[in-house]
């Protein structure tokens, strides 16, 4: 077990190094650089600017300096927010993206399991048909359309009520989070509902369920202990990748709801060619995802006795 985790961690570190290298060279080959500005500057000032950010050194030297700093957890100073360290930027904005993501996952998982179980229970009857139609909508409509419609809905709701039930956007209180998290979780919720439904139906025909019925166990107990519990397993498996999808998929929701998350910040940084922020964010997200996958694999090993970690 310990050796397995160690091996996975070593692989993870190599993966992060790979991500860092890919990002570094991708970024430095992009035409244009963060020192360009609306007002043209003289060659002397340009040279001074380059020296300040170390951009005057050869590329390979810059790469090794960057790796050395990264190993110490230092991503440097932002080009656009000229007085802020990238570490601070990530710490501040990721907290917000993470809160939003956790909530969205929670919504998606809860909704997915409940709706999925319900549809399986009412297979081919009205609740099943209605929910599956909604699921189809959730899977086939792009996230940004949901985000726009969601915000519009909030505006109209508040106008109809005469007071602010949910804020239109921004960040700060719990009420700020609910609508964006719902919107963000919708796609995943639809996906999980579908998964839960098919998993429930598959298990309904499983041998152990037949045995349980034959033994004369009460239907309620079979449903809870055997069908539901086993059907949830595949849903848990996909939660890991879903976390990744939701944390990065937060871009659109953050843009539309004016949430100061890391995703929105990343898009801005790319548009401004802010090298340090782009590299810091990418490496951080990469490391985060790698870590999440390892954690999910280990947890899964505990949950499902059939899986053996070697």
């Amino acid at each position: 077990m310990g050796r397995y985790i160690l091996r996975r961690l070593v692989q993870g570190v190599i993966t992060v190094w790979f991500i860092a290298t890919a990002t570094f060279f991708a970024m430095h080959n992009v035409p244009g650089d963060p020192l360009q500005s609306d007002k043209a500057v003289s060659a002397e000032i340009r040279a001074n600017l380059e020296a300040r950010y170390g951009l005057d050194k050869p590329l390979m030297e810059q790469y090794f300096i960057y790796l050395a700093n990264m190993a110490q957890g230092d991503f440097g100073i932002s080009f656009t927010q000229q007085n802020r360290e990238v570490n601070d930027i990530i710490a501040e904005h990721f907290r917000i993206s993470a809160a939003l993501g956790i909530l969205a996952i929670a919504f998606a998982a809860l909704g997915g399991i409940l709706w999925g179980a319900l549809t399986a229970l009412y297979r081919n009857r009205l609740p099943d048909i209605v929910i599956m139609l909604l699921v189809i909508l959730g899977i086939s409509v792009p996230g940004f359309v949901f985000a726009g419609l969601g915000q519009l809905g909030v505006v109209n709701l508040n106008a109809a009520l005469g007071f602010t039930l949910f804020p239109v956007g921004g960040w700060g209180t719990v009420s700020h989070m609910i609508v964006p998290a719902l919107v963000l979780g919708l796609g995943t919720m639809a996906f999980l509902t579908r998964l839960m439904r098919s998993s429930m139906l598959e298990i309904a025909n499983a041998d152990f369920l037949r045995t349980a019925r034959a033994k004369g166990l009460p239907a309620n107990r079979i449903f809870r202990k055997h069908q539901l519990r086993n059907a949830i397993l595949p849903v848990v498996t996909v939660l890991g990748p879903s976390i990744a999808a939701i944390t990065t998929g937060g871009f659109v929701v953050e843009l539309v709801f004016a949430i100061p998350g890391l995703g929105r910040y990343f898009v801005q940084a790319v548009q401004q060619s802010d090298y340090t922020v782009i590299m810091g964010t990418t490496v951080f997200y990469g490391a985060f995802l790698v870590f999440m996958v390892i954690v999910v694999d280990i947890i899964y090993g505990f949950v499902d006795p059939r899986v053996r970690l070697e």
Partner: protein
Amino acid sequence: MAEGAVQAGSRAPLDRGALLQLLGLGLAGVVGLGALLAVLALWTGSGAADGVDAATGTVTLALSEEPPQLDATRTTDQVSGRILGHVMEGLLRYDARNRLVPGVAESWEIGETSASFRLRADAVWSNGEPITAHDFIFAWRKALDPANASQYAFILYPLKNGEAINRGQLPPSALAARADGDRTLVVELERPVPYFAKLLAFPTYFPINETFYRSREGRYAADAEDLLYNGPFTIARWVHGASVRLEKNQRYWNADAIRLNAIDYAYITSDANASLNFYKDGKIAMTGLNSENLRDALQNRWNIRRFTDGSVFFMEFNYREGRLTRNWHLRRAMQLVNDPAELVYKVIKVPGNLPGASLFPVWLKGVRGYFRQEYPAPTTRVNEAEARRHLQLAKEQLGLTEMPPLVMLTGDSDSANKQSEYYQNVFKRRLGLDIKIDRQIFKQRLAKMTSGEFDIVMAGWGPDYDDPMTFGDLFASWNENNRGRYANAELDAAVDTARSSMDPKVRMDAMAEVQRILHEDAVVLVNYERGSVYVANPQLKGVVRRAVGTDPDFTHAWIEAPGQPSDLAATEHPSAEAEGHAGG
């Protein structure tokens, strides 16, 4: 089969029981979610107030982006400028009617090549220390120091030795500015600068307390507590990427005249729709409108206001060796099919924008009145036949049978997309000329503009100070911002005349000469003068919009208690509602 029958038979009780169990599970889930929300609530913080709050004198607004740089010597952008304009003050400032009035300086004398300022005794930093002449000298030296790499250092070039210091030929201490005691500042100028007084309200001219600056060890202006303030407001709280809250500076020398207690930039969003939704919801006091949501604003019966922000947008040609756009007939042909009125009225569709006629916008002051009223811009009417004749001549001169496609460099904003798509179609339809749109993100577009990889570039220029020169020298051969490298001795001479003469008539005549050359030589095709429309909470009064300087300016604003008749307030403060154009 038999199994199916058993299932069917037991379906009803299973349903009910299972449903109850699901409900229980759901309930547990909701409780869990509630707990999660509660934890998250602890993690984040408190909510925001309403757009205007008369009781506390707070106005809540949205910023389009986080202020990137609040070090006045290095700042370049509008958002930072807007914050700095409220929390800092230079020697002079603009009042509610856009007149230059005393700031830190209580009196001044500006001669041809020298100036002296008497600083007021009650002007203090937010830590209580008095503002001295040394604070100005320190800031100016800092801004000009090549090591500081300030991109706006050029605005200090009128100071004697300023340019030489910035180019590294002289040490910063060589700046010809000295303190005569703590309260008198004497400067020498490189040459006569007719608009010198107007520069003094610009952020690069703001003072910095040297002791404080050094105490921050490179973190100056990084956070709210890393700045010393001397303006009407201070930054009370700055949550990066989320909000900036300004509060009234009780130590400001003119604090009695400031009526707002706080300006809370509670949201940071560049999304126009999100901003509009905040306004609809009463969360912010002011928001811009765009062509997409104008009708919505009309349906809401809001009071819509307009304002010209002072910038001019144009298509600039590339005059580098080997470029087809060096050919006058080609440029003239394009000039003859360009119809700015169609662009403004059919494509941009926002009132306040004016069809472009000249590089010099309508609000610039001339000898007595407006420059453009004194020197009307030469105009061109759309004439497709004449344009095609010029295109034919261009082909003959260039020895081409077919004109290859021209590359039009443009940004990636929505408005840039719309306009480049429109112009691509115009040149194709009216002239049969193919345009390739080269759409690039901000920094890449700038890199291509600098290296000259374009035939035509969609560009714009905003004023730095309130004088026609801020536009007039743009196409001088020595100007780094002349991205197309246009060079014309006649134009250079006119710019030189306007730069060195102190006689307004001579200067404006020279600027009119520049206007004529730009048109006749088809140097640029001016598309439009940017304007905008916006809505503001009717309780919010006295907000100043201007083309040059802090915009929007809340320094003189106040909030009227609800129910109070508005014209009564207007009578009490008849001068405060000054909106529209900048003036000196």
